[in-house]
């Protein structure tokens, strides 16, 4: 009788642990994506609402810069808040994600994260952004498909910024902080300029390496001028 009870309890525990593991896989593969799509949509809605208001009255927040062709230095981004939308046609014509300030774990659940100490969008320096390869909506799942010449388009509500990829995907180690330097050495850029760096993890489900692409600012245009060519079909 005793033995039977022990064996039964043990098997019940094993089945329970198995069920929890299956549920966890469902959570990681599926549920984080559902949650992230929801939250990212919310962030984009929030931005668009902010911008639509900004065009009427002069805002003092993120949309503060004038809508002239040459953007003046914008106000510092608020931590954990969205300030731009990124479009990468190569990752899908409908691919667009909010960019938030900071690269904390919580921030990256809501969108792409801007390395706080790097340059601001469109400014001199290296505007660097990190994003999930897998889980939380898989934003950078197709990162290895990026090629030289691909467009990375961003908007901050007043200006469209079109960056063109020059190099990548470049594989490096997680401690290689140099890749987000103002003039990243391994990118091949020689002098200072307006650059963009994207980082994600590699392999897809691992964390042993990072994948990097570098791009330079190719053109800017005010939002009134319509979508940039890279986004037109």
């Amino acid at each position, binding site marked *: 009788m005793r033995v039977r009870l022990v064996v*039964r309890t043990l098997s019940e525990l094993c089945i329970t642990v198995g069920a929890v593991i299956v549920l966890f896989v469902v959570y*990681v593969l599926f549920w984080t994506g559902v949650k992230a799509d929801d939250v990212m949509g919310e962030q984009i809605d929030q931005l668009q609402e902010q911008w639509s208001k900004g065009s009427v009255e002069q805002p003092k927040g993120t949309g503060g810069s004038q809508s002239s062709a040459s953007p003046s230095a914008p106000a510092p981004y608020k931590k954990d808040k969205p300030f731009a939308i990124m479009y990468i046609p190569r990752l899908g014509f409908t691919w667009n994600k909010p960019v938030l300030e900071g690269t904390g774990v919580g921030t990256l659940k809501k969108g792409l994260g801007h390395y706080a100490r790097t340059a601001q969008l469109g400014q001199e320096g290296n505007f660097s952004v990190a994003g999930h*390869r897998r889980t939380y909506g898989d934003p950078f799942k197709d990162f290895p498909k990026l090629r030289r010449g691909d467009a990375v388009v961003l908007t901050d509500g007043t200006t469209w910024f079109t960056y063109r990829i020059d190099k990548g995907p470049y594989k490096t180690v997680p401690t290689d902080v140099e890749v987000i330097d103002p003039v990243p050495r391994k990118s091949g850029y020689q002098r200072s300029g307006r650059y963009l760096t994207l980082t994600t993890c590699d392999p897809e489900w691992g964390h042993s390496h990072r994948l990097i692409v570098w791009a330079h600012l190719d053109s800017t245009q005010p939002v009134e001028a319509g979508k940039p060519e890279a986004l037109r079909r």
Partner: protein
Amino acid sequence: MYGWIWRHLPGNAWVKALLSLVLALAVVYVLFQYVFPWAEPLLPFNDVTVDNQ
């Protein structure tokens, strides 16, 4: 374990079955809402930056 729970639930078989279902759903809710969000960052999928913030 499950037999013990079943024996300690009140009511007839139908009520017990209903209560078990509610309990199971509650467990799944707690797992998805609290336990998994805590456990998930311990896995490597979150390491996408180069300065490890």
